[in-house]
């Protein structure tokens, strides 16, 4: 199973900033191994960030997003102590959900 995400969420004024690091190979499917065989593509395809049941960001990614992806954005309406939940799903169907408390 994939390693947990590292999520930071902090509120300043009415804006909550979310920064997340995900542990993922993001293999392009274009590289070859030492024997010349193509390493199959393996990458996160969708990312969903929710707060209080509402989606605050939805993303679709291709394999051009860097290994161990980083994402940062801001949304309005978060309060200290609220939970932010992030889910990713990759092209193998692996999935991971983690949450963080807004600081």
């Amino acid at each position, binding site marked *: 199973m994939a390693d947990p995400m590292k999520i930071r969420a902090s509120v300043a004024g009415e804006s909550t900033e979310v920064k997340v690091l995900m542990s993922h190979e993001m293999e392009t499917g274009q590289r070859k191994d030492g024997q010349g065989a193509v390493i199959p593509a393996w990458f996160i395809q969708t990312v*969903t960030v929710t707060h209080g049941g509402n989606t605050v*960001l939805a993303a679709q990614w291709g394999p051009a997003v860097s290994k161990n992806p980083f994402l940062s954005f801001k949304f309005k309406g978060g309060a200290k102590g609220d939970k932010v939940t992030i889910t990713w799903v990759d092209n193998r169907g692996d999935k991971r959900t983690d949450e963080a408390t807004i600081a």
Partner: protein
Amino acid sequence: MSRKRRDVLKSGGGVTLLALVAAAGWLRPGDAAAQAWNKAAFDTRNIGETMKALGGGDPVQSKDIVFFQTPDIAENGAVVPVGITSNIPKTESIAVLIEKNPNMLAAVFDIPAGTEPSISTRVKMGQSSNIYALVKADGKYFVAAKDVKVTLGGCGG
């Protein structure tokens, strides 16, 4: 802003746009179906194909799309920071495209109402190339470009 994007997509990029968008499955925030991955769009190999797959027509160049934390020179193409802010009202989504990558589309971010139209992430670049920031706002498409040079490493890898 309405959560039902379809209602908003009326005028703008031509008569067929609404149909194309619906067919292409351009992200709809807050909708579970948004989590279907748009294979057609990610498989495209040039900007024309990408636009078609995303359901857009010719985007309009816009000075209201701003790159931040995006370097002119990247020390390594495996990790190129890209930050994009759209100052265009009713921004619905932001896409990152890399002109000279085998598949141009790197990422699409759907921006629901209440989320700032500004994202920061990191992408791979096989070689020096333009990065395009494609913004869909109020059903119309806008674009800005930034040239990023990728340099070689030192002692022979």
